[in-house]
Structures are given as C-alpha cells and as structure tokens.
C-alpha cells in the first residue's frame, strides 16, 4: 500500500513535469510548477518527512508561485515559439548524464532497507538521545535547531545575502527619477 502510493505520486510528478516542458503559456507553466511542488509535498508525507512536506508546501507551492506570478506581471505571459536551443545537443547531454546517474544508483542499497549505511551513522544517536538531550519531541527540529544550529545560522546568512541582492537589483533605477525633480527645484 505504502509502495503503491509512492509509485502513483512519482508517476503523477513525471506527468506534471512533462506537461510543464511542453506548455508555452508561462502562466500555465507557473501553475504546473505549483502543482508539482504540492505533489512532491504529498510524496514527502508518504516518505515520513512531514517537516520537509510542510516546508515544501508553504515555500515551494506558496511563496515560489507568488514570486513567479509577480515576475510574470512585470515581464511577459508567453514564451516565444522558437525551436529548442542547440538542436539535439541538450537532449544528448541529458541522456548521457541520466544514464550515468542511473548506472550509479544500481549500487545503492534498496529503498526502505533498515540495514543501509545511511541509518547507522549519526542518525541512531539523534533518534535515541535527542529527546533527553534537548527536550524536544520532534527529532528533526532538535537536529536543525540544536545539533546543527550553526548550519541553520549559515542558512539565515544566505537568506540575508539574497535579500540584500534582491533589494540592490530591484531598488536600482527607482530612486533616480525621484531625485531629479528635487535637484531641479534646488538649482535657481
């Protein structure tokens, strides 16, 4: 049952992604990308990652879609009907990279295998001791905010840098027209 749900969601994700590649109307593309995010959030719940799921639903399906719609309002609604860039080359690059990655997954431990190496380093410590050491019932929260607090601080720095960058980019050109009449008024 668990596996079936998983497979159906992954196939729906693939269909959404293919629809997204083919659509030319950017409004439809942005909406499909919101649907894609919401589907992946549902998949994360099926994979027990509830914290990732609600963050993805809020950030990926919510904020990201709003930002893209805002950009569409400021730019254009349609993609131009031009043939794909570089002819067959992108398809070739994608095929080669994809087959290399698929070849690499063959060595990976099976999905859901409790004996996989990933479950035997660090994770057992968090699962067994984080409740006593931090007093937080949610293990993901205690790792994020306590054990890896410095990582989270670095993440906040990234957001600060991005905000400064966005303000520098979008704030430009808006102040100049305001200044000009002011200067004219001062000069006799």
């Amino acid at each position, binding site marked *: 049952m*668990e596996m079936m749900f*998983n*497979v159906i969601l*992954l196939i729906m*994700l*693939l269909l959404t*992604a293919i629809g*997204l590649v083919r659509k030319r109307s*950017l409004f439809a*593309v942005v909406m499909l990308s919101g649907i*894609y*995010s919401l589907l*992946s959030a549902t*998949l*994360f719940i099926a*994979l*027990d*990652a*509830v*914290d*990732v799921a609600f*963050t*993805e639903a809020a*950030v990926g399906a919510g904020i*990201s879609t709003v*930002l893209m719609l*805002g*950009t*569409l309002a400021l*730019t254009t609604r349609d*993609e*131009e009907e*031009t043939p794909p*860039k*570089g002819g067959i080359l*992108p*398809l070739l690059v*994608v095929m080669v*990279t994809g087959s290399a*990655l698929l070849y690499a997954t*063959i060595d*990976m431990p099976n*999905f*859901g295998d*409790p004996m996989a190496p*990933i*479950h035997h380093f660090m*994770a057992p410590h968090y699962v067994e001791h984080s409740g006593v050491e931090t007093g937080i019932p*949610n*293990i*993901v929260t205690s790792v*994020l905010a306590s054990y890896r607090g410095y*990582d*989270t601080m670095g993440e906040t720095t990234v*957001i600060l840098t991005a*905000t400064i*960058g*966005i303000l520098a980019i*979008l704030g430009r*050109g808006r102040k100049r027209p305001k200044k000009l009449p002011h200067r004219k008024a001062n000069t006799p």
Partner: protein
Amino acid sequence: MSTDLLEQVSGHFNYWMAVILMMVGLYVVLSRHNLIKKLVGLNIFQTSVFILYVSMGKIHGGIAPIYVEGVTEQPVFSNPVPHVLMLTAIVVGIATTALGLSLVVLIKKTFNTIEEDEIQASLDKKRRKP
C-alpha cells in the same frame, strides 16, 4: 533471477524516478530560451534532489521522526538527518529562485525581452556599432 530483478526494480524505483525528474529539469534549463522557464526547470531539478535524499532516509515500517508520548518502547523512526538537510536546501532554494527572478525583472527592464536569443541578438547589434 526474476525475483532478483523485481527486487532491484522495486528497491530502486524511487531513485530512478528522481534521476528522470532531474533530467527533465536539466533539459528545460539547457534547451529553453525563456528565462522564467529556465528557473522553473531549475526548481524541478532541485525538488528531484529532495526526493532522492528523502527516499534514502525512508525505512520500511518506519514512522515520521517524532517521539510518541506515553510509550516505553519507541517505534522505528525514518532517518531524520536527510530531512534536516533538505529543510535547509528548500530555504536556500527559494532564496536563489527569488534572486534569479529579480534578475529576470532587471533583464526585462534593460533589454525589453526575457528570451535568451533576442538578448544575444541585441548584444551583438550593440557590439557591431559602438
């Protein structure tokens, strides 16, 4: 042999789909001229990485890693570490997307288009007559 193959397929289906989705995203980034569509492709690429990581953290019969109150023997939890890493990645991802979109707005203001080939053409025209 056939049970081996079946186990291989069911055990790796998530990883394969993650790789295929990743390649769809990469294809959009490489082959489209439109800058907004490229950013959407980048988002698909990114989400496929989340799916890959979160799939690795799943344990059969496990539950979400939150302690159950009033139980002496805690149940099996899925691995919380990939979840933490992906939470950080989502937030960094929205920061880069927002920055990219603001660059798109600036490009639209400067070149009056967001199609890459048209931007290149207008740059070439500028270079020819300085």
